[in-house]
């Protein structure tokens, strides 16, 4: 069902945990739907120097979180904003169609954390103008 990459990130998820005094924290998902992703970012000079996550969810939700944190670490905020759900899924060598929403969740978790950062620091991040972290990614 899952690619080796997914299983690798599920087996050994990178960057699990919390960042104390994180600069941005984002939480997306809904326990009713079986997945919540919470992302912590440490940002210095517009660069994501650290990222950690906690996830309640299925194998691909955990793998997507892990991969997403890996992908944004070391990136500028602008670069991180370019990390789409498709990019996450591709980096995992693909996800089953019914699991694509997990990668969407990962993208949204990054954005939610960045939104939090932008609010705390009173800055504008391009692309987050209309972003709503509470919007549901599932079709019920």
């Amino acid at each position, binding site marked *: 069902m899952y690619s080796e990459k997914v299983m690798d990130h599920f087996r050994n998820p990178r960057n699990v945990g919390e960042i104390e005094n994180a600069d941005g924290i984002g939480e997306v998902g809904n326990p*009713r739907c079986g997945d919540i992703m919470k992302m912590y970012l440490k940002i210095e000079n517009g660069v994501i120097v650290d990222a950690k996550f906690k996830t309640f969810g*299925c194998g691909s939700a*955990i793998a997507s979180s892990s991969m997403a944190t890996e992908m944004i670490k070391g990136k500028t905020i602008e670069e991180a904003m370019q990390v789409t759900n498709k990019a996450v899924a591709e980096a995992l060598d693909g996800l089953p169609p019914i699991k694509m929403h997990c990668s969407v969740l990962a993208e949204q978790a990054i954005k939610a954390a960045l939104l939090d950062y932008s609010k705390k620091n009173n800055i504008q991040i391009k692309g987050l103008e209309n972003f709503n972290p509470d919007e549901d990614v599932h079709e019920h």
Partner: protein
Amino acid sequence: MNRYIYMDNSATTQVKQEVLDEMLPYFNINYGNPSSIYTLGSKSKNAIEIARERVAKAIGANTNEIFFTAGGSESDNWALKGIAYANRKKGNHIITSKIEHHAILHTCQYLEKEGFKVTYLDVDKYGTVDLEQLKNSITDDTILISIMFANNEIGTIQPIKEIGRIAKEKGIYFHTDAVQAIGHVKIDVDDLNIDLLSMSAHKFYGPKGVGALYIRKGVKIDSLIAGGAQERNRRAGTENVPGIVGMGKAIELAYENLEESNAKLIKLRDRMISKIFDRIDYVRLNGHPTNRLPGNVNVCFEFIEGESLLLSLDMEGIAASSGSACTSGSLEPSHVLLAIGLPHEIAHGSLRLSLGDFNTEEEVDYVVDKLVEIVSRLRAMSPLYEKIKEVK
């Protein structure tokens, strides 16, 4: 992988060696078509009739009331559609429960589209159907009550005898999906007033793709699969001879060893449940505490999700299942867990371990050890668990 521990015997079982041994000659030695009159055909015919006797004996039926099918789903579809269409003139109302297998529920939905009315009975927190509601739901139009014998997810055994009595009093046909019960529960169709009963061989160490429908003599039912004169004109198609032979052997074995096997399973089951409760917190048992299938363990671990639990178990060489959404493509958790009143977020963390004849005490202990590790690892990753700890 050094060892593989299979604890998903409600999903399917392996074919026992004695069963396979009886089946083998029918693939390429006694391969005759049972409808053929020559020697090779008669051998197949006789083999089927022996299997039919074994199945009939297991549930106290007559041989001419047993009809072989391709499995539990076909039997369920046949029972429902066959009764519905054949008795339309009598009425158009069917009563079932909210926790039936999809083979029943989706067939009922189909019949609703065709103009039938279906009542889906509630269950209590243990998954037992509400008998009062059953009685109150019966109308003059009710032609069929279909209630499963034992639930496939949470293992709860239904008050079949009471339901049979109610159905009989009212002159309504009573079908039971006994796919999970056969081979584990003593069943006498006369004693329980069952008119139709579905079974599937692969749930009791027989082969996949073969099952049976018991149809009490005199019951008015249409065929689901029409064609040749097989199964006394009621279920067409060249018989799956090896499969039928295997089913016959498997059901015989199951009832020969019933008490022994059940005693063993109950011991393992209860050991597993109590160890899980001893060693893991925030856990709930689903299903009836005692009136449940001997091999069924179904628990919810809060704050974690079922699929990641299953994958983690699989990494340790342990096969189990979950009522969680994620596996099925819908994001809804199991309709059974919702029907017994679990909130969605908890239902997502369910785990079913269904024990079988090949499991050992040592395996149970090993699995619990692994579960302790896995649950704690997944909870450490879970933002929901974190919140609980904060509250504490």
